[in-house]
């Protein structure tokens, strides 16, 4: 469903992704691992349409459609979701208001009826249970004063509400203690399904003990240098990233 071909991306004239190729089929879970600065977040951002990145070569298609021609919201309407490595806090914006607007925007785009406040509340409650979130969360401002763990939980909650077909989770495990990691991974596992693909971006293999991927790719210096099954992650854990640094990571 997602095909990335020979993707070359520059940021402020600096080459970050240097010909990245990967393919994700329906229902598959892919892990992208790599040292800091290898371009993992760059890939996540380019997939979701963040500005500031220049695609200088290659292509990205989702179900045959050119993703790069679409705005971020159009990509969301096609079922793409990004779980942010650093979700922003927005004081004054009520979490429930935001998510109801988001869910309804997506429903509108598909020609479906919008949820009213009551409908939404019922659905939101159910999804919050999935993530073991407190009801008080509904009345709080988006990520405002949230702990690192709460922010990441909130990302998965949003994913649960938006029911994407392809979710890219950028270091969803960073900043989580072991309990929070369990809750978040449980949530992700419950959201796995035959028609939902996942790209898990992570620095550490720890997450992959909980959310077991079908494929693992190693990103280094802006390219995928190795791909394999889940055992590749374990291998990386014991040997570290040192072995792949033919050239030092550009930082």
């Amino acid at each position, binding site marked *: 469903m997602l095909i990335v071909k020979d993707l070359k991306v520059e940021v402020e004239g600096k080459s970050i992704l240097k010909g990245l190729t990967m393919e994700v089929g329906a229902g598959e879970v892919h892990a992208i691992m790599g040292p800091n600065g290898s371009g993992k977040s760059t890939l996540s951002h380019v997939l979701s349409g963040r500005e500031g990145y220049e695609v200088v070569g290659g292509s990205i298609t989702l179900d045959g459609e050119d993703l790069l021609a679409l705005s971020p*919201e159009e990509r969301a309407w096609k079922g793409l*979701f*990004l779980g*942010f490595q650093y979700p922003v806090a*927005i004081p004054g914006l009520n979490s429930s208001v*935001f998510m109801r607007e*988001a*869910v309804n*925007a997506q429903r509108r785009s598909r020609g479906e009826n919008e949820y009213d406040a009551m409908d939404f509340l019922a659905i939101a409650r159910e999804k919050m249970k999935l993530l073991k979130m407190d009801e008080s969360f509904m009345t709080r401002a988006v990520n405002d004063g949230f702990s690192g763990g709460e922010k990441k939980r909130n990302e998965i909650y949003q994913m649960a509400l938006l029911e994407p077909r392809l979710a890219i989770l950028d270091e969803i495990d960073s900043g989580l203690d072991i309990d929070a990691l369990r809750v978040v991974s449980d949530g992700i596992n419950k959201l796995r399904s035959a028609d939902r693909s996942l790209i898990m971006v992570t620095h550490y293999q720890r997450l992959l003990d909980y959310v077991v991927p079908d494929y693992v790719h190693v990103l280094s210096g802006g390219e995928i240098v190795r791909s394999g099954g889940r055992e590749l992650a374990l291998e990386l854990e014991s040997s570290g990233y040192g072995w792949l640094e033919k050239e030092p990571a550009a930082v």
Partner: protein
Amino acid sequence: MVATQASADNRTAFQQQFENRKPHLPGDAEVRERAMQQLLTTGLPDRKTERWRYTRINSLLKQPLEPAQKPATTTATDRQPLLDSLNSGSGAPLLVFQQGYFCAELSRLEGLGEIQFKPLAAALESGAVMLPEAADGRDRAFDQLNTALVADGGWLQLPAGKHPLITIVVLSGSAAETSYWRLLVTAASHCEAELAIIYADSEADQETDGKAYQLNSSIDLDLAPNAQVSLSQLQQQGEQAFQVSSLRANLQRDSSFKSHVLTLGGAISRDDVDIDLAEAGAHVEFDGLQLTNGRQHADLHLTLEHAAPNCTSQVSHHGLFGDHGRGVFNGRVHVHPGADGTDSQMSSKNLLLSDRAEIDAKPELEIYADDVKCAHGCTVGDLNRDELFYLRSRGLTEQDARALLLSAFAAASFATLGGHWGEYVANAVTKKMEQLSHE
């Protein structure tokens, strides 16, 4: 200082108003005489008055408007829907003033409970209270005028204990005149009270109102030890109005004062907020919001006197300016010698929605104590790109994302106002935001 011809003239005009009005004014005449004398000596703000640098009012004062007279007794007003919406069966007290004069017919005193209220005229006549001395200086001319000319307003004594919200509606006349209004409040030890003030004109339909009128509002508030008071002011004047408001709060030991100044209406508005953290452990939270468009001009001058040890203050100002809208924010924190352990935070965040909009925001810190934590920040710009992307990545169009973020930006400044009042404020802001983003 050499007075210009114009200001010398309008001083005389104000003096004439005072002489005409004096025989009918309630209470001690001497404090009024002294206030008038201060005005005659120092004059009105002009181009060289530092605290009025960005707010030019010369043309407004060239021919001073006459002070409003007490309106004929009335039980009906175009503002009835507003009053009803504020009351909405809550049974909470409502104090209504017209042209600065207390209007018993439109007010509801039943819910006041233990709270003592008197119209200011009656309180001054009875000698129960005196007008405080007006502050010195050209920049305080409107305080001096209020002290000299004000005929009515309110006097509130808040005893210990928790009280219901008191809503106060100050309606200006829409005739070309100046309404003077004064509120004196004392909050006893261990009192918990909330005051909500709305300024509006007496005609419901602001869009069609083309008349220039003025309101001079002045509030004095004393917080006894451990008192907790919240006072929020929402300004929704007509588009030709000139409003000057001053608020002085004196905070004794361990008292806590939360205050909002939310400016949506008026052609020119000026707020002077002076908070004196006079005794140890006092705490202030202040939120200012300015939303202007058209040719509106809103000016907020805030001064915090950290005069005692271990006091804390949090000041947050938000400005949103569209079209030719202008804003001025001056936030001064003065930490006196010996005010050790002061913790003061101030921020001013501003969004300019058009090339012609303008904000002059200036924090001023003066610190003469040790062991002090003071932080201040000031930003001016457009919406945050990361926030916009976050919303769009969830499926909101750029336009919807912008609208939501603008509302959130404004909402951050009244997030702590709950209940019916919070909703009223939110609706008023939403309505104003629609005007702002449709230009």
